[in-house]
């Protein structure tokens, strides 16, 4: 759906259903240089299982207008503002990669607005090496190719896709290339400078599920487990053979783990 927030036209995928703030709201928060398309196989799946789904494109990403936000805190504030603008009191936030930092920050600072937490391929900090930062500024297509290559595990590189005929690498490259030129650079800088992950995560009282990838090269498994250990009510599911882009690579496993978590945990 199209939505206006802070004078910016925002695109929000709702999984093919009309959004209704009466039900339980799931907000899917994309990672660096990504968009709502990270969640193709989650948004529709949960929208048709009784959840009210919001998978927004941050400003300057996907089909949203505006310029990219410059810090994780600003992104967390933006998500809460989005909930305000849609009259949503509380939602379950589900982040991927950078989206995990946003989710952690929002859950810690706005505990009344975040009912439950899903953290997919995340860590308490996501430092970015200078080479990738430089590429994102001066050679964007190379930065995108590097991230798509590192971001996918063995199944991705073997093009073994649950969506018949699709290539993970080809799709990932085009998804990222469609964003605002500065989107990836801004996102990587925001990740690099965010230092509150551990402090914020240790304050989160809400039930939290960490879905981690065994072959994750971008937020390696041991850092994901550290994140889970820091959360007061953290649970962990590790998906074997998966790379960082596991919502696309292993959608059925991600959806099952998240659905079970949502079914089993209370909302308080």
């Amino acid at each position, binding site marked *: 759906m199209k939505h206006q927030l802070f004078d910016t036209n925002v695109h929000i*995928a709702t999984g093919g259903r009309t959004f209704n703030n009466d039900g339980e709201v799931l907000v899917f928060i994309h990672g660096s240089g990504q968009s709502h398309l990270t969640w193709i196989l989650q948004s*529709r799946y949960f929208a048709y299982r009784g959840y009210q789904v919001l998978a927004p494109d941050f400003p300057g990403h996907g089909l949203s207008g505006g310029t990219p936000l410059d810090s994780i805190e600003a992104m967390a504030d933006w998500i809460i503002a989005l909930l305000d603008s849609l009259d949503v009191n509380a939602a379950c936030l589900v982040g991927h990669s950078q989206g995990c930092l946003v989710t952690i920050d929002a859950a810690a600072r706005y505990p009344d607005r975040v009912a439950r937490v899903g953290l997919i391929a995340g860590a308490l900090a996501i430092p970015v090496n200078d080479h990738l930062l430089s590429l994102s500024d001066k050679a964007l297509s190379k930065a995108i190719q590097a991230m798509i290559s590192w971001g996918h595990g063995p*199944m991705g590189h073997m093009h*073994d896709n649950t969506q*018949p005929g*699709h290539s993970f690498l*080809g799709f990932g490259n085009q998804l990222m290339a469609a964003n605002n030129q500065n989107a990836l650079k801004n996102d990587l800088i925001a990740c690099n400078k965010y230092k509150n992950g551990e402090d914020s995560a240790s304050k989160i009282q809400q039930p939290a599920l960490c879905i981690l990838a065994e072959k994750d090269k971008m937020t390696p498994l041991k850092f994901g487990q550290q994140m889970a250990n820091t959360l007061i009510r953290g649970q962990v599911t590790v998906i074997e053979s998966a790379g960082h882009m596991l919502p696309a690579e292993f959608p059925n496993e991600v959806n099952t783990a998240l659905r079970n978590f949502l079914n089993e945990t209370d909302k308080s």
Partner: protein
Amino acid sequence: MSGDYKFDTLSLHAGHVPDERHGSRAVPIHQTTSYVFKDTEHAAALYNQELGGHLYTRISNPTIAVLEQRIAALEGAVAATATASGMAALATALLVLCSQGDHIVASSRMYGANINLLENTLPRFGITTSFIDPNDLAGIENAIQPNTKVIFGEVIGNPGLDIMDVEAIAKIAASAGIPLMLDCTFNTPWLLKPLELGANLIIHSLTKWIGGHGVAIGGVVVDGGNFDWGQNDKFSNIAGPHYAMDGINFYEEFGPAAFTAKFRAEGMYNFGPSLSPTNAFHILQGMETLSLRMQCHMDNTAKMLEFLVGHDAVAWVRHPSLPDHPGHELAKRMMPRGAGSIIVFGLKGGRDAGRAFIESVELASHLANVGDAKTLVIHPASTTHSHISAEAMVEGGLSDDMIRISVGLEDFTDIKADFELGFLAAAKKLKLKE
């Protein structure tokens, strides 16, 4: 995995990981029409595109999906959808892109069936085409109308061997807000990956070099994912609500794979141009050796050109790697590994000498195919292009004496000896006439 797999590795492996239960190393043939749903929720989810997976082989199939994913990997595409033939791929792609009242700009130098479809069949459904010389860039640009939905052509024209300037025409298409779709049958991704030069959609007849063995007909539509279907109001069938699935908007829902989603949901669903799983398996066997075969095709083509150009019986020879070909420099730049293994030539003595030649060769097969591992010969004017008008023949750069060779993988000394026999027969025919 230390980096992205290279072309030869992808040709062997892409799209397939042995299943845990059986461990079959070769791609299994899933010769089935249908797939057992786990429960009613699973069935509904597959129909509603909430999950990836297969529900009916008209739409998708596990063996065919391996082939599609392998092609997508080799082309650097977001997705590919296989069809029963190259013509099924082209016709279905155009019917997904165009509606009544729409217009196409197409190369005038193409395969006879491609021209027939655009010139004679699609106008019956209100879709018209302007045919333009593929070398006339200004002509292509000027032919674009407000209702034009696509520019279409063959990278290496069949059989005239005209070369399209992919990068230049892609820029024309992009500035007009329409996609460039190319038939890349003659070049294969081993010679050229047109998506890297800005093309948006690719058609292959998989029957030809990609299969390479002449045992299975197949085609594919490759989606580059590099065209913004929502940039204007020309493509509301892709960037607007679909008639089913609660009005799904493929552009918003699938982003770079929007065309493929529409192609599968409408093209495969409603027209049903499905490939047989067994044919997909056969084509996959061919793909495993694509690099090796293409290198040998190029080597033998170079030897054949040297042989023909220096032969007394030959009146003329055309191939993009010859310096007198108008597309020579362009072909060298775009396809440094070679410009395909089709050669056309004429014999002294014209059409009658050509007929004698074709009827006398023994190793080379006289048949209506190209890209086989075996050397093939044909007379286009009386066969593959016999259904197009005399004007279109001239417009397409075809002559009555033209013989088309698809250079195969035999030991070249044997092909050469066979052609010498044919030339002898042609010379006798010429003498008898005198």
